[in-house]
């Protein structure tokens, strides 16, 4: 396990040393900041209006639901762009620099390498989104009252969604030695996954349910609404397993491919 952590720590360090790492953090906080401010402002405007009209409270206009559900749904879409940038280097760059050859000859198992890389990416992702808890603190200090349940499930859902995207990106990064190819293909696949919900709406019938069940966003949405459904969690766990397994197989192809 210590070996896995060593690989993860190196992955994280390399990410922050690269320019892409800084860009990912910058872009994420610009987007998160815009989404947060906009939803807080429109929440404030709506509640002012409803007070003027004489209503005490509007149904469905809870602070948690209005600001945070929306924010996390939008951040899910931001991940479409950021996950490919986070994973593009991971295995592709190591292959290009031939440092992968070193890793394979260190006393590491393929699992140590793949899982260590994945873990490093997840750590980066956690560092990326955990500071958003600062928004809670801002609203709290302004006298906001939260429903903590949905906030916790939203974080859990976001964590699972991010991990799923990273496992997919890691797999695609293992297929090429070109970072750009890795990023573009990952982005394209994520985009298709994003569109699955629309496709299912367009298709209709019995196939629609199946296509919908494949969409990570359909499973993610309930998390942001405070619904903790075991089938959604199972979907994400399977997603992780599937792509980490494929990555392991991909790394093994060196045995028979020159």
């Amino acid at each position, binding site marked *: 396990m210590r070996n896995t952590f060593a690989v993860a720590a190196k992955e994280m360090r*390399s990410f922050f040393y*690269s320019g892409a790492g800084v860009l990912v953090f910058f872009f994420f906080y610009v987007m998160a900041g815009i989404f947060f401010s906009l939803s807080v402002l429109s929440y404030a405007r709506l509640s002012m209006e409803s007070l003027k009209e004489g209503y005490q409270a509007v149904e469905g206009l809870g602070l948690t639901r209005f600001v945070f559900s929306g924010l996390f749904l939008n951040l899910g879409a931001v991940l479409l762009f950021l996950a490919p940038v986070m994973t593009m280097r991971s295995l592709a760059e190591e292959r290009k*620099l031939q*440092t992968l050859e*070193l890793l394979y000859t260190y006393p590491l198992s393929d699992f140590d390498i793949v899982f260590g890389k994945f873990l490093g990416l997840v750590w980066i992702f956690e560092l990326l989104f955990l500071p958003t808890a600062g928004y809670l603190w801002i609203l709290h200090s302004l006298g906001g009252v939260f429903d903590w349940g949905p906030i916790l499930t939203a974080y859990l859902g976001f964590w699972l969604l991010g991990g799923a995207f990273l496992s997919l990106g890691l797999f695609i990064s293992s297929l090429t030695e070109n970072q750009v190819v890795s990023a573009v293909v990952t982005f394209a696949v994520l985009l298709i996954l994003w569109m699955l919900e629309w496709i299912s709406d367009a298709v209709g019938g019995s196939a629609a349910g199946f296509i919908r069940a494949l969409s990570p966003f359909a499973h993610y949405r309930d998390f942001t609404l405070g619904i903790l459904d075991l089938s959604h969690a199972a979907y994400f766990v399977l997603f992780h397993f599937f792509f980490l397994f494929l990555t392991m197989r991909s790394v093994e192809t060196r045995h028979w491919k*020159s």
Partner: protein
Amino acid sequence: MPESAPHGSADGDLAPVLARLEDVSKNFGSRRVLKGISFELRKGEILGFLGPNGAGKTTAMRILTGYFPPSQGRVWIGEQDLFREPQKLKRRIGYLPESVTLYGEMRVCEFVEFAAQVKGLAGIKKRREVEEKLTRCGLWDVKHRLIGRLSKGFRQRIGIAQALIGDPEILVLDEPSNGLDPKQIMEIRGLIRELAQDRTLILSSHILPEVSALCDRVLIINKGSVIASGTADELESGLRERHELVITLGPPADKAGVFRLLENVPGLERISIETAREGLVTVVVGIEKGRDVRAELSRLFVTQNLPLLEMRSGRLSLEEIFMKLVLEENEDASQREDA
């Protein structure tokens, strides 16, 4: 199968075998890159891997370092099968891959520390090991520099430093001086020679003087097979069909006269006047196998009143041996294909 049996493995009191490749083959799809090579590595020796590009040197090294398993055959590290317990046995091998670029964005000490970590070192032991290897490879002064900013020579030292971490018994260096300038090559060779004092080394190269300068034993690989192995001397004596004599004569010898004189001596196959300067004439003559004409020649020179300054047998350089073997092998192969 190897076409010539390894020399000098008959007597019993040799150093213990640290690693052994046993009839190792490697296929990539339908392409056979290694065709059943076998060799052993004995404690304390420096084994040179020689072969033209694409001969299978790197593939053999990758198998020995556990990068991928062979398609057939086995690799023994001591008494154990490398691919049965790779995690444990890989600790006993340090590897410098060919033209490895390393992590440019990391600092020297960070990278070497990482190598120490994945090799299972921690705490004070890790720190001491990193310090020792950085010092040993002459990297102490640049330990906080970014790897990407350092010269190729330094990067190659970092590659060697990471291979040395954990003090593996066997050090595998793939083309260690590739892409370095002459000064850096000298430095790396010096380092390798130093390391060889208390370690077992296997190094590949296509630069022949390097192998003859550094290695105790040479293994020549061509087209995936071992075509010869042994010390440089052994390889040479096995190959010498024809003796060569190098003769230096002093004044009043002149080129044309010496040539005419030697033309009439029976048993000389090839006469070439190599240099003639400052009144000295140097002649290289080929002599039929099993014939000794030295006494006859010296008498001849005396009767002609030519001062004989030097007469020695010429030796084939490793380069000539290599070219000969590889060329013969290729000719044989093409003849077989024709037939």
